Structure formats: C-alpha cells, structure tokens
C-alpha cells in the first residue's frame, strides 16, 4: 500500500510555488502570474525504491514569513519546501531566520530550500553570489525549464520516508 506524505510549499508570493507544482505534477508551465489565495491541494504518485509514495502537495498562498502562514495548513505535514526567487532579494534576505524557524518549530520535519527561476541567473556575478556559504544547502530550480524540479521533490521524498 502506498504511503501518503503531505508536503507544504512555503515562501513569499510570486516566487513560483504554484509553477513548481504545475511543472512537477502536470509537466506544464505558464508565464502568467496567478496569485494563490488560501490553499490548493494536488497529488502525485511516485515510485521510490520499488515502493509507491503518494505525495499530497499543499500549495499555500505566499507569505512574507512562515510565521504568518495559517497554522492549520501546516498541520500533519511530513515535509516542507521553502521557495525563494533568485531574482528578488526580499524573498531570500530572511532565509536564515526562516530556516531557523522551521528547525525550531518543526524539528522532526525535513525541508528543502529552493532558489527558483534559475533561468534568470544570466551573469557570472549573480551565479557566484548563490555559490556562497549562505546558500550551500539550497537547490536551484527553474519551473520554466523544469531543471532540477523532479530532483528536489525526490530528495525531499527520500528524507520523508527515511
């Protein structure tokens, strides 16, 4: 029988949370920005080590801090994805605090941090900035091209079923 794991995607508005889910679940992408109000729930079944895992992904509305997210949405989570936008500084300038918040309040729940829109990293200086120590545990994805989207969900799934 498949295990069911609940993943909640967090981060500021406009960082591409919905786009990441659409890319991952529906293999689709749209340039149009459509704000998420409340929560949309999607699911995808994957095989991990010959075992079926059902990922139920909660796409919650963007917030400037995790603390502001509705607590009931986070209830019963097995994993978190925290998404920021590599092209907007305000979406990653509190990254250390956000990671500390998750570690302190959801210590048993694995999470991955994603720098999305990596297709917009076009110059060497910008790329070098994200090579620094502050971002060493981050994954960098592009919902637009699909680059590394599957990988980050797979990594989180591995951590959740461990």
């Amino acid at each position, binding site marked *: 029988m498949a295990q*069911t794991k*609940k993943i909640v995607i967090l981060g500021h*508005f*406009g960082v591409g949370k919905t786009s990441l889910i659409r890319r991952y679940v529906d293999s689709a992408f749209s340039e149009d*920005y*459509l*704000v998420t*109000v*409340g*929560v*949309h*729930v*999607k*699911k995808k079944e994957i095989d991990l080590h010959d075992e079926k895992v*059902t990922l*139920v992904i*909660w796409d919650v*509305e*963007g917030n400037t801090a995790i603390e502001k997210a*509705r607590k*009931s*949405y986070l*209830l*019963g989570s097995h994993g978190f994805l925290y998404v920021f936008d590599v092209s*907007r500084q*305000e979406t990653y300038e509190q990254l250390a605090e956000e990671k500390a918040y998750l570690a302190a309040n959801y210590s048993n729940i694995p999470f991955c941090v994603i720098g999305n829109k990596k297709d917009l990293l076009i110059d060497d200086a910008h790329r070098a900035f994200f090579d620094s120590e502050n971002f060493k545990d981050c994954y960098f994805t592009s919902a637009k091209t699909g680059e590394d989207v599957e990988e980050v969900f797979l990594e989180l799934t591995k951590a959740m079923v461990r």
Partner: protein
Amino acid sequence: MIMTNDQNSFFANKVQEIHTNLLGEVIQSSDTIFELEKGANIFELHPFFESMQQELTSGHDNSLAFPCVQLDIDDRVIICDITIKKQREFLAILLFDYSTHYEHLHAAAHEKKTALLNEQAHDLSLKHNEERKEYSELVRESLKNKIIGQLEDVLLDTQKLCKTDLSKEQQILVTDIERTITDLHRKAKQIRDSLEINFN
C-alpha cells in the same frame, strides 16, 4: 421571527454537513454541494482529506478549521472553509461554500500582488539605471583624468619636441606619434561623450 423559504435556502445551499466513521466512510451527508454515497470514503474523495487521514484517525478529539480551500470534486470546483470536528466515534465535517466571496478576494489579491510585483520591478529597474549611471560617471571620470588628460600631456610634449632641432627621421617619428596620440585622444573623447549621451 420565522425565516422565509428563500432566506432559509440561501445559507442552507452553501453548507454541507458530512458524518463519517473513523475509517472515513460516509455515514450521512446533507449533499448540498457534493453528492456523496453512503459508505464512500472521504479520504479518497480529495487529496485534501487524504492528507489529513493520519491526523484525523489518531490522537484526541479535536476541532480543525481550514479557511479558503479549493476543492475540485466530480468536475465541480468550490472554494470553501472546512471545519472538521473529531468525536470519539465519528468525524463531523462542515463545508461552507464561500466561492463567490473568495473569487472577489482572489481578484483583489491578484490585482494588489501584481501591482506590488510591478512596483518592485520598476524600483529595481530605477536602481539598476542609477547604478549604471554611477558606473558610467566613474568610467567617464577615469577616461578624462587618466587617459584623455595624459594623452593631452603627451601631445604637448610632442609639440615641444617638434620645436627642437630634430633629424628628419626623428621628425617623421614624432609626427607619427602625434598623429596616433591625436587619434587616440579623439576616440577616448568619443567614448566619454557616448557614455554621457546614453544617460542623459
């Protein structure tokens, strides 16, 4: 006071009450929004409920509230508030269909956040232009002080040299140097001026 039938049905049509046993099997449902068969499993109805299964089938009696949840069941999409009351032997689930309210909210939120993103993009663009202008100013100053000025000094020196007693060969050489320096000086000034034009 007695409500009229119209008043009664306004909210009645927007609220659905579902009772299930702890396995999630529907015992009864008012079927106001979605039609559910008796015995159907709520945890298979929608991923929202599926992901709550562990939470609802273990632990103590409690009451949970989830505002603004998009539910798409049987080609019907509603945006609702969901309240789940867990009792010892059953789950009571209330769906409040607030689609109209949330759709208005969605339109307003979309407009607001799009405007915010546009404003941030505009601010970034202004900042970028400001930095480019500063950088350009720096380059212009460097061109003026370190290159154009020095070329002018060399030109003055070559002019002084021309007035001295030079051999024919030396004169040709100095004239060549003067021509090259004049050309470099003109090009450096062109670059400086083009930087000025780009930012004015």
